[in-house]
């Protein structure tokens, strides 16, 4: 910079050079810390004096006018550096404050959603057991129903705890995919079976090629992703809605589609549906939120992607894509040669 100024000094005179140097110091102040900026300010004052103010190449200043200018230059450069630094510090503090406020908001949302999610089944269990213990007028049918309610509430609690454990695993940050060869057909059928067991009135339609190649991925994570999406679909759509799951592989991209003909998400929800504990007006969405942030977290951990699309005329489609290594099955490779005698 000083060199450019030196070249220009013949053209524009040494006083303009001072301003160019001042601009340089100001620019430095925007990006660097206070100490290097102060050093730069002092150095530039020295450079201006040494190289530009006549007589050149001496620290000596001949004109009184130039002495005043030099002192002014030095003071302005210093003030400039200090002010910029202060402004930056205030900005930083306010952004930390904002972050803190956001995390408090998030924390409250979690607590609200949690206390609702945990207390509802607990209330059912306490109510039912109290009734069973103290109410002597219960018919045997009443008793059966109360016990069924307790059982249902326990399953729900268990699912919530499972979700919380998953969330805290994801939150801890050091979650890593443990990849192994995985039979996608088996995984899909197993997840569907569990969802159907928990939602007896639902039937999920599977469409998957029986000759699906083995995929190298974290089975537990993919299972959680698929299970949560299917379970959400089963819980949050009307019984009459159809739920479909399909899986395909193109090159090294595994794609899983989960589609329902339910009433779908509200347009505005679609953008932030995967946000941690996303919560629209209705509490039911908060319930979805926990599952969906797990879905998002685990797909991220597998370096994959999850998208939500609207289906016409109504319904939702989740598209999960994950880059995987796959292996087509050639049985003979795995069979010790001398063994094939049957």
């Amino acid at each position: 910079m000083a060199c450019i100024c030196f070249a220009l000094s013949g053209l524009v005179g040494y006083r303009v050079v001072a301003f160019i140097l001042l601009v340089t110091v100001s620019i430095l102040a925007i990006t660097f810390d206070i100490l290097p900026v102060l050093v730069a300010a002092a150095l530039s004052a020295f450079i201006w004096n040494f190289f530009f103010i006549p007589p050149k190449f001496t620290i000596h200043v001949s004109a009184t006018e130039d002495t005043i200018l030099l002192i002014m230059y030095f003071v302005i450069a210093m003030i400039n550096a200090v002010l910029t630094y202060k402004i930056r510090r205030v900005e930083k503090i306010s952004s930390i404050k904002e972050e803190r406020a956001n995390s408090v908001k998030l924390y409250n949302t979690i607590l609200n959603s949690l206390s609702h999610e945990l207390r509802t089944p607990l209330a059912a269990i306490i109510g039912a057991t109290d009734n069973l213990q103290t109410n002597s007028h219960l018919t045997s049918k009443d008793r059966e129903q109360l016990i069924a309610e307790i059982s249902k509430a326990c399953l729900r609690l268990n699912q919530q705890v499972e979700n919380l454990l998953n969330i805290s695993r994801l939150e801890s940050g050091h979650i890593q995919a443990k990849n192994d060869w995985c039979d996608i057909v088996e995984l899909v059928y197993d997840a569907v079976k569990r969802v159907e067991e928990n939602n007896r009135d639902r039937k999920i339609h599977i469409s998957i090629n029986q000759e699906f190649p083995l995929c190298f991925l974290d089975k537990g994570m993919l299972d959680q992703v698929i299970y949560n999406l299917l379970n959400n679909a089963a819980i949050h759509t009307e019984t009459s809605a159809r739920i479909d799951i399909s899986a395909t592989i193109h090159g090294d991209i595994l794609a899983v589609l989960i589609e329902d003909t339910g009433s779908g998400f509200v347009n505005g929800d679609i953008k932030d549906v995967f946000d941690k504990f996303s919560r629209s007006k209705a509490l039911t969405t908060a319930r979805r939120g926990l599952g969906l942030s797990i879905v998002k977290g685990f797909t991220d951990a597998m370096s994959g992607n999850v998208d939500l699309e609207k289906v016409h005329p109504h319904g939702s489609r989740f598209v999960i894509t994950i880059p995987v290594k796959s292996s087509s099955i050639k049985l003979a490779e795995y069979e010790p040669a001398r063994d094939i005698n049957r």
Partner: protein
Amino acid sequence: MSRPEILIVDDEPQMRKTLEITLQSNGYTPKSAASAKEGIIMASNHPPALVLLDLGLPDESGHVLLQKLRRWYTNPVIILSVQKNEEDIVKALDNGANDYLSKPFRTGELLARIRSALRSLITDDADTALNFRDIQIDLSARLVRKNNQLVRLTSTEYNLLALLVRNEGKVLTHQYLLRAIWGPGFINQSQYLRVFIAQIRKKIETDANRPEYLLTESGVGYRFISQI
């Protein structure tokens, strides 16, 4: 028939109480211990027919207790674990546990596992022709029939199936199966297992996608079960 004795080793009083009631009312004689120390004393004073062992004990890890027990105790041990930690479960199975259940579990599941563990004790060196609903396996002739039709299995398929059948009800870990069928150099080749299990299912299951005999224990291994 006498009521088989089952020793419960669990430090949670609530869990012990529930298990005692469940076992008592299902034809077993439950005994309980609240710590590893108490457990090992009770087991050696009067060896039970089966041990239900919680892995998280206050005085000593369930893994250590299991190793101590296995020096002389040959009856089945079923692990109760509160964490679904696959490594933990595999470790316990490798240390000689017959089966595991993660808490919370359904009572029906627990009773089924106990029945199957006690049964495998009886049929360990019994007859070579086995009947399971619509499947017949003749271990001496190495033949498998489904609905009276001969099932054509390759040698490896047969060996894998026979190993699982001989350990009916018991979870065999991936590493155990790979070592036993392919050899010690193959314990990391899990894709071999996946391929062969899928292949055997296509041949012996009525619906290979909804297996009734050859069950997957996710992240742990496989088991053959004879009763639904």
